[in-house]
């Protein structure tokens, strides 16, 4: 392909406030117009996949909190589902744990989308949205702290269930949050949805059509904004999503504005999902009873011989799934987050591959940026919502 000759080569990033981390773009400009570009990534490559090969299955979990560091719960959930599939115990997970997983995953989606909304609007010049969005995100983080103890890196999921049951304060605060949050969403939309500056910055910018999006493997809100209704929660339901009633928001325009619309509607759907979970959640245990999979309760470890032995066995030897390979995926806030695990029958994965939605979503950038103006670059990156920790792993 013959490239138009560039007048100026502009280096954008890696330390640039609007590239969502350390993404470096080399832009070839003709006037204000981009005629070619290249993306340089890898500045926060930490070798997570290599690290995972040397850790026991239980030890890997906290590492994945830090892959996509603003949506720890969905990261953990994907991995936990993959290991459970490998062990063949998916059907034995208690129902209450499944509902709690869904609640946490949807809260994570809300908090992640709020960060996206705040920073994306900030980059395009709407300062106040940032303050509003982070105000509500704080409430979600408080909820995480209440149930799991951690705010960002919750470490809440376990292979075989979840770490803790709810507290009465958690339920109260969650209900309160669900009560006020839809109003707050209206507030954000009041600031942006019909704002003339917002419309002119986002409408018709960075258009990706459906075929292109599928061909590039794009998933998540970016794909749904292009008119394809693919959502892992609907196509391949995991946990209890098949028993919940929710819509998958779809737009057809495929531009930055459509992605904004899809994500805003997704937050409303998340509120609906959590409400239903609270209604339908049964009482019962939150962890599988099989102590070869999950650590026994602390009272048993300290007071009984059997408990101590089981605890010791599991900590020293770890889980040993049969040889084989599985792929399990969840719908993360950024798209399909998949885990491909190859097991050789030992207590460590032989190979573990994360399918990072951010990496695959931004691979289209060099092609997408062509013929756009420099100012649109920021709008486009923001709308794809990449998280560099996940891109580089």
């Amino acid at each position: 392909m013959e490239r138009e000759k560039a007048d100026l080569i502009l280096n954008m990033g890696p330390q640039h406030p609007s590239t969502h981390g350390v993404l470096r773009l080399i832009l070839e400009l003709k006037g204000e117009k981009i005629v070619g570009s290249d993306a340089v990534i890898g500045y926060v490559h930490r070798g997570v996949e290599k690290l995972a090969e040397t850790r026991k299955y239980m030890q890997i979990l906290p590492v994945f909190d830090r892959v996509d560091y603003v949506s720890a719960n969905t990261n953990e959930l994907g991995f936990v589902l993959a290991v459970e599939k490998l062990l063949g115990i998916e059907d034995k997970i208690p129902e209450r744990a499944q509902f709690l997983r869904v609640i946490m995953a949807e809260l994570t989606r809300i908090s992640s989308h709020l960060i996206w909304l705040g920073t994306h609007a900030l980059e395009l010049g709407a300062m106040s949205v940032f303050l509003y969005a982070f105000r509500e995100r704080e409430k979600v983080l408080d909820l995480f702290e209440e149930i799991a103890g951690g705010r960002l890196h919750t470490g809440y999921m376990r292979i075989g269930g979840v770490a803790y049951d709810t507290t009465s304060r958690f339920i109260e605060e969650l209900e309160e949050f669900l009560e006020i949050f839809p109003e707050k969403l209206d507030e954000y939309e009041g600031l942006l949805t019909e704002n003339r500056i917002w419309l002119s910055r986002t409408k018709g910018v960075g258009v990706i059509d459906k075929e292109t999006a599928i061909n590039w493997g794009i998933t998540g809100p970016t794909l749904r904004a292009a008119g394809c209704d693919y959502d892992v929660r609907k196509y391949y339901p995991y946990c209890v999503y098949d028993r919940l009633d929710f819509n998958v928001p779809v737009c057809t325009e495929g531009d930055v504005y459509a992605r904004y619309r899809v994500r805003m509607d997704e937050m409303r759907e998340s509120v609906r999902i959590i409400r239903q979970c609270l209604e339908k959640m049964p009482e019962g245990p939150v962890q599988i009873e099989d102590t070869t999979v999950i650590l026994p309760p602390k009272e048993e470890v300290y007071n009984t011989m059997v408990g101590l032995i089981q605890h010791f066995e599991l900590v020293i030897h770890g889980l040993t799934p049969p040889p084989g390979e599985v792929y399990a995926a969840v719908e993360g806030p950024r798209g399909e987050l998949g885990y491909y695990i190859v097991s050789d029958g030992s207590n460590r994965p032989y190979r573990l591959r994360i399918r990072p939605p951010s990496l695959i979503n931004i691979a289209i950038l060099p092609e997408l940026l062509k013929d756009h103006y420099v100012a649109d670059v920021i709008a486009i990156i923001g709308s794809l919502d990449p998280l560099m920790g996940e891109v580089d792993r």
Partner: protein
Amino acid sequence: MKYIDENLINVLKEHFKDKIEEIGTFRGEVSVVVKKSALKEFMAFLKHDNRFQMDMLVDVTAVDFPEHNPRFQVVYHLRSIPLKHNLRVKCWAENNEVPTVLDLWKTADWTEREVYEMLGVRFTGRELRKLLLPQRYPYHPLRKDFPLEGYEEPCEVWDWE
């Protein structure tokens, strides 16, 4: 996750016969091992045939088996959005090379580059550059013989071009 059913597996067996080395099912997931010489034809068939319509390449990765010859197995995860089924295609990389599938699915653009830098499998028929690592970095870190701590860092790999 839904994978292709028995009928479609038989279609593949009939159509490709001995070009398929192995078809395995584990936990409901179907994996097909294809001969390298037939990989391109196989992938194009999956994409364009009406019974398969695999229009999305979910991921490309590779697994290192140091004891095995050829050493690397490249793994493709394919999905059909209209028919909702999945398939895993695997191919042994003889001479550490496999043909690229970039012309069929653009997803392969960055994922193949990552496999190349991390494991050293070359994809023929396309331009290959490293994706995450510095261009002059001499090792392939995801190989089993690469130590977790890495080697002492040779400073001249940093090319601030």
